[in-house]
């Protein structure tokens, strides 16, 4: 992509995360290879792709949950092999995992509070204000603040997981399949909120199987297929690319 084109899409916003030639292996099996990826401040980037393409593996590697090879530059700092989940959290990277990983026997409020744990330990005492902001985004959570997280519905769980991540005031928010197992109306609501997050300046990396919804909110998209990025481009371009549909329904080899 030319520098001019680059500027036209991203403006002069700083790069939050840049990944070059990333590879991840499980034992002898390489699950991801040659991944290049870039996210700017205030931008929503989506990685779409069929089941089993390696999307969750990508997020786990970025978050430091899995060892990876290649260059990762986060907030201008090259990440060495000693990077840990804890240090990344400290520097504003958060992941809303596919399984949500809520604290089921705790109230909604306590779940949110723990989202701010690292900031609290770092001396910040603004968690109550942040919680009010989260409640503004997710009024449903305020209604349920006393309820145990384990008793929430699927959509509410996803909202709580996102709200908990926002409590950390992240610079990069990574969402793993926020639409997973949710009904269409709720998916619409979740994606509306994701689109609004752009205003807060947070960079969002959205990993989705639900390609249409993801491409609708995202600025830029990558298609991940069998561990490699097969197509990339501005969302609008991808949305009309017939190869995207093929990669999903496996029609490529037959027609």
């Amino acid at each position: 992509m030319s520098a001019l084109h680059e500027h036209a899409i991203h403006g002069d916003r700083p790069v939050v995360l840049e990944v070059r030639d990333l590879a991840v292996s499980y034992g002898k099996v390489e699950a991801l290879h040659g991944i290049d990826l870039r996210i700017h401040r205030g931008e929503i980037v989506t990685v779409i792709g069929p089941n089993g393409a390696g999307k969750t593996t990508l997020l786990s590697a970025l978050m430091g949950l899995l060892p990876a090879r290649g260059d990762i530059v986060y907030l201008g700092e090259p990440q060495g092999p000693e990077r840990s989940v804890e240090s990344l959290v400290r520097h504003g990277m958060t992941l809303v995992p596919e399984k949500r990983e809520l604290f089921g026997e705790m109230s909604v409020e306590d779940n949110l509070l723990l989202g701010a744990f690292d900031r609290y330990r770092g001396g910040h005492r603004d968690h109550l204000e942040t919680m009010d902001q989260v409640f503004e985004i997710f009024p449903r959570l305020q209604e349920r603040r006393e309820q145990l997280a384990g008793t929430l519905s699927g959509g509410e769980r996803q909202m709580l997981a996102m709200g908990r991540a926002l409590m950390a005031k992240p610079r990069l928010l990574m969402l793993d399949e926020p639409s997973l197992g949710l009904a269409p109306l709720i998916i619409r609501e979740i994606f509306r909120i994701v689109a609004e997050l752009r205003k807060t300046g947070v960079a969002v990396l959205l990993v989705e199987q639900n390609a249409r919804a993801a491409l609708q909110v995202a600025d830029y998209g990558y298609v991940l297929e069998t561990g490699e990025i097969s197509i990339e481009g501005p969302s609008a371009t991808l949305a009309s690319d017939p190869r995207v549909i093929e990669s999903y329904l496996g029609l490529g080899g037959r027609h």
Partner: protein
Amino acid sequence: MTRNRILLAVLLAALALGPLVLAEFHITLLNYIGLYAMVALGLVLLTGVGGLTSFGQAAFVGLGAYASAYLTTAHGASPWLGLLAGLALTAAVALLLGAITLRMGGHYLPLGTIAWGISLYFLFGNVEFLGGHTGISGIPALTLFGQELKSGRDFYYLIWFVLLVLVLATRNLLDSREGRAIRALKGGALMAEAMGVNTPRSKIVAFTVAALYACLSGWLYAHLQRFVNPTPFSLNMGIEYLFMAVVGGVAHVWGALLGAGIITVLKQWLQDWLPGLFGQSGNFEMIVFGLLMIFILHRAREGLWPLLLRLFPGSVAHRPPPAAAEPLPRRTLPPAGTPLLEVREASKRFGGLLANDRMNLTVKAGEILALIGPNGAGKSTMFNGISGVDPVTSGSVSFLGERVETLPAREIARRGMSRTFQHVRLLPAMSVLENVAIGAHLRGARNFVHAALHSERGEEARLLHEAAGQLVRCDLAEHLYDPAGSLPLGKQRIVEIARALAADPCLLLLDEPAAGLRYLEKQALADLLRRLRDEGMGILLVEHDMDFVMGLADRVVVMEFGKKLAEGLPDEIQRNPLVLEAYLGGVE
């Protein structure tokens, strides 16, 4: 002769000639090593192989010792009667403790055995007819072939004979159908259940056998010492037995011997040396043992035996495939078109989430039904509900006309349903052949006594022949003796299919069998599945590779949000707008 046989011959010769040259002190030491090694051997079976553990083995040693001591001194009974009584008592206690604790998480058994070890120690010390803390003396010597075994030197050969027999029996047991079931307990219980193994029973077998080994050691000890008191049967000694097994190599039968030798000699030496160093007396060797254990579990969790083996690298001999044997009897498959599986209104609830919502599906003999849908649609949950691994909350599952939704997985397997897992569940250190043989578990019947005596070799040969045959059929003939974990993930999935086929099922459940396969391998797999279908087997398949599914399946069921979204022929499904929406997302 292989390396192992040479080492064994050297060991046997050294043991046989030992008493001719060794001093009394060394004979005594060797006797103790032999007695301790018997107990540690039981722990190898229980802990290293079965993934369970006990700190109460010393108490079982005590049962064996006290049973014979009491019967021979108070009632003038024969020591052999004492042995039988001790074994019976031990088996009863082990079965009781096992039945109570083994149903729960793995850590309840060790906790139960700690409590039991302490209780029994205090009981020995406080019961009057067992002599209280002073114990029982005047225990008669053993008489063997008219010869009274009065000295340690007399006893030496008996102890080592018994130990070597136990080692042999343990090795035999592990190398058998029952042994594979025990080896599957550590990290593979769920898989084993789905293959028809009664895992609670296997756990109890391992625990009881370990207890009986300890009891035998105790009986020998009582008649060697001719005197018993509670001290050698305390919890501390129980802990030491476990240390022996772990130090030596808890997953290796010879590790028990090595560990017993090291700990016994080290203890002897430390007890001479440490009190002098610290200027006071006490069990200071336990400090060293404790630190040694922590170090070993941090740095060499497999113990010292594998390290020792590395010093004597042997050549890996090329092994021929198992010899041909009479084929196992096969199930008669129902005629094509017969409904095999009928799922009606099946739902599965996890807390507030409905993972399966009134699902219906039917699989007939001689057809391939594909179950597809986006991530999180509930496909694997449906599989677990059908196979009994995680039963449905409501609704019915009928297999061959019989309701099975409340049966445990092993009972469903027995009726002719076999499955693979989405996350491969093989025992990585076990050979591919043996992994597949676990699939044929229900096609054998001989129990662990036959296994220990190796009197079930005929049946075993037929099982292995069957397993090898399935591997040949799945194109894995060159990997028979490779550790399953060394294969690439795609091939491991095929091993899972071979294992499921070894059960001789009429319905096969495959969870993402093509994931990780290359193009040609996928084609080979598709050919195999077509052949199985043509033979009359029913196949239910979850798969993400649409190319693979659409070219293979006779019918397709699409799931979304736990419900059935569509059902039909592959071509219909590919043109169905609802399905397209589900896959690409339907938000405007």
